[in-house]
């Protein structure tokens, strides 16, 4: 069957190509895309190329990257501008950025430098979550080599363009992935998200114009420069083109990160890429893009492809493309219990609907899971979701409400089974 991903079996990987020791600078080569950019293009032209390529953010929201870059205000003397590279990656089910940092860090660094040029920033803060200590060591070593080769730093390759990359180590808070929270964290404060507007492009780190992009997004930039915007726009689904790092986990035979074009059929990813379900079990549910996106029932994925448009129609979102496959024996109440626990733990506590709402969600779902819930709790949970959505500073409250609402609506039988067993046990009926 022809899919949007086209002939994906013969797809040539560009983000994580099969080259041994690619993480070494000597193997990666000397930043040809950066050289081309510095020699041939103006910053506006670079942003234009990226805009034309149709690259959309891989951090979850899917915002067009070139457009984001063009939001930066005009340059003013004495006002520094910054780029943040978001390598916080704490969304459950997502593990693509870590693989990128491990196997192809230079492409990410090169992407950062090109983005710095496009938005004329002098510094990029690369925010990596604290748990990735080993990967920070790795990046530090490779970054030092790039500095030595004059690919980063002052007067890069003698072109007069200077820029720095500073690695910032987080310390274990999911909320730091949210863009404004990341900025607070960089400034050395408690990472409370800020109210938007003003948006980061107007007032970001220390109040200066800032652009923030995911690590994976920036790693897509060098191939775009090398091979052209048309080539990139032609990969995968129109409207959401490019290579996607599918992080597949759960009850599949061969979990891991796979690079394929966008717009892959979910069924292809499961059966042909990840080797099917473990032990030949039937599929029960798919979480297509990290914990925050609505879960899909097995009967909802026919013909659904992994791009923003198709998933939206199916009632979910692409998110980070971290896919979790669950088999027929999975208890969806236990699943939801763990998800709500996650959000309760990670809520920063700034807004009451989120701080208390996530707590009550966990409480109610735990009660149902332990067989002490009743049917009214389900409606209470749905009502709670309505009360939380869109009433908070950042999107974490929405991200907590979506899985709750959709898991209950789509797997209501599972929940009712657990509720009822506590209300009408065999004894009371008899």
């Amino acid at each position, binding site marked *: 069957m022809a899919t949007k991903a086209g002939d994906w079996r013969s797809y040539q*990987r560009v983000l*994580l190509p*099969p080259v041994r020791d690619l993480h070494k600078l000597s193997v990666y080569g000397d930043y040809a895309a950066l050289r081309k950019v510095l020699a041939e293009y103006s910053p506006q032209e670079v942003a234009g190329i990226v805009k034309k390529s149709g690259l959309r953010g891989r951090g979850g929201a899917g915002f067009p990257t070139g457009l984001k870059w063009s939001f930066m205000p005009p340059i003013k003397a004495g006002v*520094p501008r910054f780029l943040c590279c978001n390598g916080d990656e*704490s969304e*459950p*089910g*997502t*593990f693509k*950025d*870590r*693989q990128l940092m491990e196997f192809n860090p230079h492409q990410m660094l090169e992407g950062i430098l090109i983005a710095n040029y496009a938005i004329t920033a002098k510094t990029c803060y690369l925010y990596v*979550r*604290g*748990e*990735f*200590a*080993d990967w920070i060591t790795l990046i530090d070593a490779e970054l030092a080599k790039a500095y030595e080769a004059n690919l980063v730093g002052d007067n890069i390759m003698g072109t007069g363009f200077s820029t*720095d990359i*500073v690695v910032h*180590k*987080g*310390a*274990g*808070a*999911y909320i730091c992935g949210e863009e404004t929270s990341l900025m607070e964290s960089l*400034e*050395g*404060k*408690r*990472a409370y998200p800020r109210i938007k507007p003003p948006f980061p492009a107007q007032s970001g780190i*220390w109040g*200066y114009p800032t652009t923030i992009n995911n690590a994976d997004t920036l790693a897509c930039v060098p191939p775009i420069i090398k091979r052209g915007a048309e080539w990139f726009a032609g990969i995968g689904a129109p409207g959401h083109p490019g290579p996607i790092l599918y*992080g597949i*986990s*759960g009850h599949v035979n*061969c*979990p*891991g*990160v*796979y*690079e394929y074009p966008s717009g892959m059929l979910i069924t292809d990813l499961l059966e042909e890429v990840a080797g099917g379900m473990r*032990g030949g079990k039937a599929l029960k549910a798919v*979480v297509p893009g990290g*914990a925050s996106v609505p879960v899909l029932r097995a009967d909802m994925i026919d013909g659904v492809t992994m791009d923003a448009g198709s998933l939206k129609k199916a009632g979910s979102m692409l998110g980070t493309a971290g896919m*979790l496959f669950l088999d027929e024996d999975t208890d969806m109440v236990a*699943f939801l219990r*763990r998800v709500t*626990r*996650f959000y*309760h*733990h*990670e809520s920063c506590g700034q807004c009451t609907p989120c701080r208390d709402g996530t*707590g*009550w969600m*966990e*409480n109610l779902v*735990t*009660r149902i*899971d332990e067989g002490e819930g009743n049917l009214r709790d389900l409606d209470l949970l749905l009502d709670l979701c309505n009360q939380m959505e869109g009433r908070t500073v950042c999107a974490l409250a929405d991200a907590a409400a979506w899985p709750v609402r959709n898991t209950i609506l789509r797997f209501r039988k599972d929940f009712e089974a657990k509720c009822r067993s506590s209300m009408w046990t065999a004894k009371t009926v008899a």
Partner: protein
Amino acid sequence: MADFIRNPVVTLPDRNPAPHFCEQELAFTEEEKTKIARWVSQYPTPDGAVMWTLWLAQEKFGFLPPEVLRLVGEELGIPYAQVYGVATFYTQYYKQKKGVCVLDVCTCFSCQFTGGYDLLHYLEEKLGIHAGETTADGCFTLQEVECLGACGSAPMLQVSNGPFVHCVTRARADALIDALKAGRMPEFASVTLPQDEDELGGNRRTDVAFCERYATLPIAKHTR
């Protein structure tokens, strides 16, 4: 009912514990001061360097009691309250003394359904402690943590904010504990990409059987 009011998920540390370190111990060496100065130079204001400095302090002192936080504040010239605020926001900064090895077992959903809780409960039984506690000899602290970004090699754990141990089976957990007791930290392990297996060879899991299903409840009865 309102469990989370009585037992908050993130407990706040004691505000004024008896000091753990004496005056003489509380100082950074010249070498550490140069490191801190380098971090400070990388940000527009010294505040930016507070997270790196806290990491340094935690490596040096093992954990971050108020007197260490005060030292960090003095070193950077920022208020103690701000340093305290930052240290208490992030879970990886230890506000209380932990064991020599901290085992962070991921139990978030990918791990949950491939044996994360089984692993946690196995270690609880093996070490004779509940999650969140430290063994009597001060060797091990066992913790339940949120997704560590290695869901493809679940179940997994992290040792003392350092190396990841992927695809942990019972046998591997036993071997890990033995090695840690002998003072050997696990090495950095790279998990090959599945797509590279044919061309470059791989080290991916072959012993799927152990992780086939989660058998134990998300929060086992005996932990409460």
